[in-house]
């Protein structure tokens, strides 16, 4: 028990370090002392620096924390709910739903005529389209979840929804012009740096709702480790529990995708990395560890994406995949099997 608390403290310490690093690094070199002063509201000589830290770096770091921890937690919830180590926030087709929403908005304008003029492609319309897309997929999954008793079937339905939506996206892409296609592709690269304070606040509210729902599910998640029949025999209301977990996942993963675009592998890989570290499946310990580790991983990916010392920025989705995929493969090869 003591050792696990130690592990969580180490994770927390690492998080603080990486937050400082992500605030420090950037295309403009600002001394760390001035970065800290700006955050705590102490005036510094260079007001441009203060502006960069407060309006650009801080919201970006917060976004990375919220999105990394939110996606990782939703991955953990999915892996336990489906008792499948390869489940992640994508299996329910949530991100493909968001992609479909954005694809229809951006590339469907040719089909729908002048109503969706190019001036309409504001950031907010993309966020709304992504939210509507994942909400629709979530409602479809919830409706099927009521009819289908077997969670494995639900998992397969999620995969089918994903391939269906990607097919529609391909059709839309085929009929759209180069400019629209580029816009969609840029969205699908993902980005952490586009959020202002109000948007960060909105993302934070969604994140908080998802976390609170998950905290109330901790006990039942532990029972689900034994499978649905055992959980039921121990007094767990399966359908209600499943509903809460799916809603929580949808809010966490849906809001992350809406604000930052699709970000791959974080939700799948982080819970497995944490299990290697804390060596338990007790969600009371896993949940906080996964939240912290998710934030750390996302911040590291963001630091790498900025390519310190250069003015270039890599697409965040590519960075998470480049690091996430080898981790999953390493777990499969090295550990022979990955367990949920």
């Amino acid at each position: 028990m003591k050792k696990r608390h130690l592990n969580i403290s180490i994770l927390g310490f690492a998080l603080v370090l990486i937050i400082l690093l992500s605030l420090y690094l950037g295309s403009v070199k600002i001394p760390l002392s001035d970065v800290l002063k700006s955050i705590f509201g102490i005036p510094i000589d260079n007001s441009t620096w203060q502006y960069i830290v407060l309006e650009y770096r801080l919201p970006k770091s917060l976004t990375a924390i919220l999105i990394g921890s939110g996606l990782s937690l939703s991955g953990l919830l999915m892996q336990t709910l489906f008792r499948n180590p390869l489940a992640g926030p994508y299996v329910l087709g949530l991100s493909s739903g968001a992609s479909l929403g954005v694809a229809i908005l951006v590339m469907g304008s040719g089909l729908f005529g002048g109503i969706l003029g190019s001036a309409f492609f504001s950031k907010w319309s993309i966020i709304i389209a992504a939210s509507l897309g994942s909400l629709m997929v979530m409602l479809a999954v919830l409706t099927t979840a009521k009819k289908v008793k077997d969670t494995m079937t639900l998992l397969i339905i999620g995969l089918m929804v994903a391939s269906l939506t990607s097919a529609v996206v391909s059709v839309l892409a085929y009929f759209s012009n180069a400019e629209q296609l580029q816009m969609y592709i840029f969205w699908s690269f993902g980005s952490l740096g586009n959020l202002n304070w109000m948007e960060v606040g909105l993302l934070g509210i969604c994140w908080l709702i998802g976390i609170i729902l998950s905290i109330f599910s901790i006990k039942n998640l532990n029972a689900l480790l034994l499978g649905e029949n055992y959980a039921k025999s121990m007094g767990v209301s399966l359908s209600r529990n499943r509903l809460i977990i799916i809603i929580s996942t949808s809010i966490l993963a849906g809001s992350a995708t809406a604000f930052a675009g699709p970000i791959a592998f974080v939700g799948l890989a982080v819970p497995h990395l944490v299990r290697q570290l804390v060596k338990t499946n007790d969600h009371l310990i896993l949940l906080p560890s996964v939240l912290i580790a998710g934030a750390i991983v996302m911040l590291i990916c963001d630091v790498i994406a900025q390519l310190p010392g250069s003015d270039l920025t890599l697409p965040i989705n590519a960075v998470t995949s480049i690091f996430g995929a080898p981790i999953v493969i390493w777990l499969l090869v090295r550990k022979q099997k990955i367990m949920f």
Partner: protein
Amino acid sequence: MNEKVHSKNILKAENLSIGYKRQSESICVAKNIDFEIKTKELVAVIGVNGSGKSTLLKTLSNILPPLSGNIFLNESSLTKIDQKKLSNLISLVLTNESISKNMSILELVTLGRHPYTNWLGTLTTSDQRKVLKAIEQVGMLDLRNKSCDSLSDGQFQKVLIARALAQDTPLIIMDEPTSHLDMYHKAYVLQLLKSITKTSQKSIVFASHEINLALQLCDRIILINNGKINVGTPSKLIKNGAFEKLFPKDLIVFDQISQSFRMKIS
């Protein structure tokens, strides 16, 4: 009649029909089932593959609704007991469940206290004591911090039994607790069940293919054969010749003297 009221029945089936629904059509597996299970009894459910052992156990544990008839658990109707309350009365040991083995024995057995803990699952000292006692009862106290992933099938089966013991219910229902085990561990697990019923106030109902072992150990046997149910003590069923009709006679025959099935050697 008077005597029946006084002897403690934990479970009672009355004119029960069991089966399952397939595409809104009910398929009856067995009907006219009447039996009682008393406190501290070890009861085996025996029948050939596909005879309806699992259906009976699922009906008794309220996973499947009965087609007709009544089941009484502690003298109240089973179908009217809510899921929460039922978790204090019946615990299960199942086979072929997708269980996460990525936890220690202690953690898995601790999950048995789930119905009694608060919303965060915090254990009281009495919970912890019951968990340790359950692990001790299956003789795995020294191994309690070992990962379930490293256990043999027999050891893991004992862990699952310990989890059911930690749930501390008057009735434990087990679906084939001895499958996948070698002969020694089959005997070991059944002896363990016997000693649990003798030393605690618990009754155990289990499905098994181990007829020879069950006949030597069980207080009562529920024999399912072609939709008919035969209930009684092992000696009564043997006397009635109930086992002779269980299997086709070309390969194995029931030997009254050794009270077991023997290979037919021609």
